[in-house]
């Protein structure tokens, strides 16, 4: 085969080649040049280069293995992210054809050695009239020549990025036959850049042109880092009107804007359709960076809103830095302070007006934090993934998830809670009087207060006293959490059963599976400092990380690691903190319901309460009318059909190890009291509020998938084998099934390989 020379095409000639080879981005720009417009000089790599690269590095099979592991349309976004992450890692580790690499170097030698480049995706389906793929594939700016090949590989890999795959999923494009061309252009300094829509994309009005501008580089606008100045150009009257601007923004010459607008109109005529244009004003000339048809005119925005919501989950670095700052220094302290203030306020006041005021405050606070969670905490939790991408780009490790070892922390709220549980387990195992008392308590029919029950014994026995104190502290500090429409502190028996099971094998408490809690020497005392930080393996990894970053990128690497660690901790802690806030509301909603019942406006206070009902309760109490309450649905337990038995199921290997044990399917917290130590727990979705039960698990299976979901994090912390992303796990597996869980390969074997049926017939 000829060298790749044929596929390295000067931008000016790109229009002579079909879009199926070069993609529309390169062709559209080339078309602009043909028509007398200016664009930064550059060249394109056709899709043949992509095909050659994937063939040489055997990537098609790797992609196939990732994407067809389970029906693609059935993957959750976190699983899609994981698949994309691994595919990207394969691409980054692949090597470019030597002849092509040489060609690129020789071609770029016509520019100064310190020239910087933009490396942009130009996939055949991209920027077409039907699909824009705007912001879906990767583009890199300010790339030095030494990093060109690395970035080209990453642009290729972005054909398989999470965003891209989700976009294809929605648009039903064939992921398998996709290929990607790349456009490389030399960067030019520009004092003014902007984005223009030659028709109003919101209304479809073609008489209006929308022009947005920022000073300096365009990525500040595209990545939403800087708020642009926005103008409307009215084509018929040839006038410009400005939207309100910040006082800090410089005034832009109207003549310049009008001149630009005329040029954009000319371009629209050439393309024969409304277009959006990314452009730069060099100070003397207009330079076109990108042109594509507006695909969205007259379409409702709703259909894109879900994907757009997903895109907000993957903020760029500058946004993440801002978020990190806000989350660490204001949001989390504020949330903690709010919970503390509510706790200090204590039990509901008798006087109705005061009670209603407080209920309202709590309700409003709940609504506010729910939104903060959605808008800021979830996107910030993506910092773990962004750090992973950064780390892997820097170090190209064999194991793409090795970066997790740099993030782990035993200072998670869940880890602290679990250490307290371990301590209670040990205390219980050591005192026979305590064991007797606890056994007697569990025999009681009513769910009494344990502390009250132990009162008498505690006065004469220090072990009982200590247990009582620690247990009370656990209830007040760690279990004052709303979960599954109730407070976790309510069912003391359930909690105690977990502790009894934990204590049942006290010899192993310190050294076996529970070492994951990292208890300090001296039986489960909470570790004051993060022992993960001084772990030698981790220190070594950190050294490698900084040495790969080098002096030049040290600051950047520090920032990324900070984001990664903060995000890791928040990912788990936020649910627990919110659970505490919710618990503060729960008490008041329940009191409100009691009062409604007292006033004859409600027949019965429901056992499970929907917090969203706080407003209905408040209004009913105020207006003295019957409330309309949300029905809390019971979890449906679908039975497996006897005719079909799963023998082997697959998922993601989310925590390594091999274990054979009985399955215990967890449908709700009520199932916790039946859990025996060592069983393989089968969940639909694991939440940090209830991960204390995982202390008892011999293995974990979860329907919800992802290498970075809560169960993966906690399982790895505790060294419990786990497989997640198992479709319909809680329905296909039944309590009592004998399970062999392979956490290295993500395989679950169910039942024994008997052939009794064949023999008996």
């Amino acid at each position, binding site marked *: 085969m000829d060298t790749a020379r044929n596929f390295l095409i000067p931008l000016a000639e790109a229009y002579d080649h079909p879009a199926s080879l070069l993609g529309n981005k390169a062709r559209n720009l080339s078309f602009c040049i043909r028509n007398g417009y200016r664009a930064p000089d550059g060249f394109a790599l056709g899709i043949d280069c992509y095909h050659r690269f994937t063939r040489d590095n055997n990537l098609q099979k790797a992609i196939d293995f990732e994407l067809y592991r389970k029906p693609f349309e059935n993957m959750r976004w976190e699983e899609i992210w994981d698949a994309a992450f691994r595919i990207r890692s394969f691409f980054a580790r692949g090597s470019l054809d030597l002849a092509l690499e040489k060609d690129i170097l020789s071609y770029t030698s016509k520019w100064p050695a310190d020239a910087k480049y933009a490396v942009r995706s130009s996939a055949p389906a991209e920027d077409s009239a039907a699909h824009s793929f705007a912001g879906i594939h990767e583009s890199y700016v300010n790339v030095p020549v030494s990093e060109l090949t690395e970035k080209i590989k990453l642009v290729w890999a972005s054909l398989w990025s999470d965003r891209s795959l989700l976009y294809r999923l929605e648009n039903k494009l064939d992921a398998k036959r996709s290929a990607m061309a790349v456009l490389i252009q030399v960067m030019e300094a520009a004092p003014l850049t902007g984005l223009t829509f030659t028709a109003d994309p919101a209304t479809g009005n073609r008489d209006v042109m929308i022009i947005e501008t920022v000073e300096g580089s365009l990525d500040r606008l595209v990545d939403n880092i800087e708020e642009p100045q926005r103008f409307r150009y009215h084509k018929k009257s040839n006038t410009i009107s400005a939207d309100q601007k910040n006082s800090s923004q410089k005034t832009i010459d109207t003549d310049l804007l009008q001149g630009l607008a005329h040029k954009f109109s000319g371009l629209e005529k050439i393309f024969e359709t409304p277009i959006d244009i990314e452009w730069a004003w060099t100070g003397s000339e207009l330079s076109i960076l990108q042109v594509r048809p507006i695909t969205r005119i007259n379409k409702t925005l709703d259909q894109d809103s879900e994907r757009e919501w997903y895109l907000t989950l993957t903020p760029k670095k500058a946004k993440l830095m801002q978020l990190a700052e806000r989350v660490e220094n204001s949001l989390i302290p504020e949330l903690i302070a709010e919970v503390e203030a509510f706790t200090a306020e204590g039990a509901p006041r008798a006087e109705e007006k005061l009670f209603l005021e407080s209920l309202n405050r709590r309700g409003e606070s709940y609504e506010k934090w729910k939104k903060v969670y959605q808008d800021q905490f979830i996107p910030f939790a993506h910092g773990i993934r962004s750090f992973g991408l950064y780390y892997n780009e820097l170090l190209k490790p064999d194991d793409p998830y090795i970066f997790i070892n740099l993030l782990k922390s035993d200072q998670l709220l869940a880890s602290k809670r679990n250490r307290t549980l371990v301590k209670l387990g040990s205390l219980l195992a050591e005192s026979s009087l305590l064991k007797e008392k606890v056994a007697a308590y569990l025999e009681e029919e009513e769910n009494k207060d344990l502390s009250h029950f132990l009162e008498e014994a505690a006065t004469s026995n220090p072990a009982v006293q200590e247990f009582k104190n620690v247990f009370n502290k656990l209830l007040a500090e760690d279990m004052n959490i709303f979960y599954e429409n109730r407070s976790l502190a309510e069912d003391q028996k359930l909690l105690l059963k977990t502790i009894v099971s934990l204590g049942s094998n006290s010899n192993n408490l310190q050294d076996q599976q529970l070492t994951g809690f990292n208890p300090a020497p001296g039986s489960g005392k909470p570790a004051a400092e993060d022992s993960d930080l001084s772990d030698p393996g981790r220190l070594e990894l950190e050294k490698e990380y900084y040495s790969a970053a080098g002096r030049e990128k040290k600051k950047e690497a520090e920032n990324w690691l900070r984001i990664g660690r903060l995000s890791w901790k928040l990912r788990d802690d936020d649910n627990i903190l919110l659970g505490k806030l919710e618990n503060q509301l729960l008490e008041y909603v329940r009191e409100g319901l009691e009062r409604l019942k007292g006033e004859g406006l409600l027949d019965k206070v429901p056992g499970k309460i929907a917090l969203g009902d706080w407003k209905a309760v408040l209004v009913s109490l105020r207006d003295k009318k019957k409330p309309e309450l949300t029905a809390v649905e019971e979890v449906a337990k679908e039975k497996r059909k006897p005719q079909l038995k799963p023998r*082997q199921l697959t998922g993601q290997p989310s925590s390594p190890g091999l274990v054979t044990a009985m399955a215990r399917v967890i449908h709700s917290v009520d199932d916790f009291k039946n859990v025996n130590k060592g069983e393989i727990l089968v969940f639909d979705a694991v939440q940090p509020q209830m991960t204390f039960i995982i202390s008892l698990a011999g293995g974990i299976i979860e329907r919800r998938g992802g290498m970075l979901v809560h169960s993966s994090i906690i399982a790895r912390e505790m060294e419990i084998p786990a497989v997640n992303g198992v479709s319909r796990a809680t329905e296909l597996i039944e309590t009592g099934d004998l399970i062999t869980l392979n956490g290295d390969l993500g395989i679950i074997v169910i039942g024994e390989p008997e052939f009794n049926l064949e023999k008996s017939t």
Partner: protein
Amino acid sequence: MKRDYDEPMFIDVVYYSKDCSAEQIETEIKELCFEQPFAVLATQGEGQPYTALISFAASDDLTHLVFSTPTQTRKYSQIKDNRQVSMLIDTRSLQPESINLVRAVTVTGKARPLENPDEIELWSKLLLDKHGYLEKFVHSESSSLILVRAVRYFYVRRFQEVYQWTPPETS
């Protein structure tokens, strides 16, 4: 478990998926058995497993599979001695590139040569409906029609996903 504002539900379609329902698995097994012309038959004798490629057909309810063999073959004599057999039906010829897309079913069951003329007429019709070109072979004096009562189907897809499906009790 809790599904409040925790994760975007719109992508989370697995929960509603019918992908591993009994109906779906049954349909997929039927597709395989009805559309694939050939199977690998495993028999045993003197402690030695033995495999052979056969043309086969399956009954609508998948309780039975039928094939024809000359009576002087190894598989025939082994079945006469030991009725327990296994069959493998797969799509590897359709998906040579993708380990995830190949599907296969292993059937376990009991085989017996048919002797009753009514039975022979019924089951040879089923076999010849699928493999008309075998007419002479099936009707030859030296051939025997073998009926397998299927006990279990082990269906494999996506490289490592395995389901055990049991056909109805009565045929």
